[in-house]
């Protein structure tokens, strides 16, 4: 609980860390309907695609310095010495990022969904999908950033992109299911399954990667 409190304090006080990505998301989602013909009936259909891509980009942006700052100032060194389970620390860190960035974006995404499509059902359906998707993206991009901790974020993005692409395919299927009025719960459970595996596995892998960097 102490660690959760500390991580919350750190991210909350570093407003550019959480507010920046949220504002970028707001900018993209606000700019989208302004840049297309408002009478275009396809706007409802293309909205979801833009939403997934905006979420992907913003999560990538949000995790850019998730470990870098702690690595540079020696906090990670102290954590590795003090805490037997570095993976636990990483899990909490990613959870805090999700709480302050992923969750607001999920709610904002649903709000934009309602605003653009005028469909309350769609907005409600979007909330769980976005909550799970943002958490998956945060984990995957955190892994990428851990890999490229001292080598710049480009390498991390290149490495994690192949991991993210299958997820975008699933999200594409969700768009089709929603547009055709089909049951999309199967896809939701698939995302939940992916998230369960990622939550268990990635923090452990990230902890090994970070330990290697600390050496």
């Amino acid at each position: 609980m102490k660690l959760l409190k500390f991580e919350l304090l750190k991210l909350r006080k570093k407003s550019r860390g959480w507010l920046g990505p949220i504002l970028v998301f707001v900018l993209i989602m606000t700019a989208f309907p302004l840049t297309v013909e408002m009478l275009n009936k396809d706007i409802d259909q293309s909205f979801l695609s833009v939403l997934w891509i905006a979420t992907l980009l913003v999560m990538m942006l949000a995790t850019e310095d998730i470990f870098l700052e702690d690595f540079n100032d020696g906090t990670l060194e102290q954590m590795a010495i003090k805490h037997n389970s570095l993976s636990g620390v990483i899990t909490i860190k990613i959870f805090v990022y999700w709480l302050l960035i992923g969750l607001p974006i999920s709610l904002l995404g649903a709000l934009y969904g309602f605003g653009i499509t005028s469909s309350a059902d769609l907005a409600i359906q979007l909330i769980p999908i976005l909550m799970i998707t943002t958490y998956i993206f945060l984990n995957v991009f955190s892994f990428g950033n851990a890999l490229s901790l001292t080598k710049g974020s480009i390498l991390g993005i290149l490495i994690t992109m192949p991991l993210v692409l299958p997820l975008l395919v699933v999200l594409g299927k969700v768009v089709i299911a929603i547009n055709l009025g089909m049951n999309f719960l199967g896809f939701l459970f698939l995302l939940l399954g992916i998230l369960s595996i990622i939550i268990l596995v990635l923090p452990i892998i990230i902890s090994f990667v970070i330990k290697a960097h600390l050496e």
Partner: protein
Amino acid sequence: MKKILVAENLSYKINDTKLFQNLSFSLNEGAAIHILGSNGSGKTSLLKIISGLTKQTKGEIEKNYNKDICFIGHKNALKQYLTVEDNLSLLEIEAHGNLKSFLQLLGLDKLLDVMVANLSYGQQKKLALLRLFLNNSDLLVLDEPCVGLDKKSQDILCTFLSDELNAKKALIFSSHISLDISAEVLQLDKA
């Protein structure tokens, strides 16, 4: 006398550069080791091996202590965008009984609301050293603890470390500034 640390034939190399080879030493409770050596001789690497951050290339190291290590490295582990008070809370020492007296001793008591970024390097170093002053560890591992400290703060540090040694704690440190502490010297030379 309880042996806190026993190192046997420790060797370490980075890529093809051998830093030290077949290094053996032991550290008893209440004793100190001062690691000396030129730049790049492996002082920091040895301290990181002892702290468990790095693995030695060869050799064995036996650790025999109950609590966490107190490791103070080159990096201060302070958050520049937080106040001194917030950083104390991150260091988990905000509720320590002796915190107030150490803050006064180091001249940090009136700076609690100041952002760490606005402190001088020496003040930041003193803030980082509070983790050492309020530690609860059997083994103290310090990498150049005097860098950035004025004479008064260095004296405070020496007095504190002497008291810790009297309290049966073990100390291993590297420092280019001589400290007024009774310590065995461990000379590292490039292999």
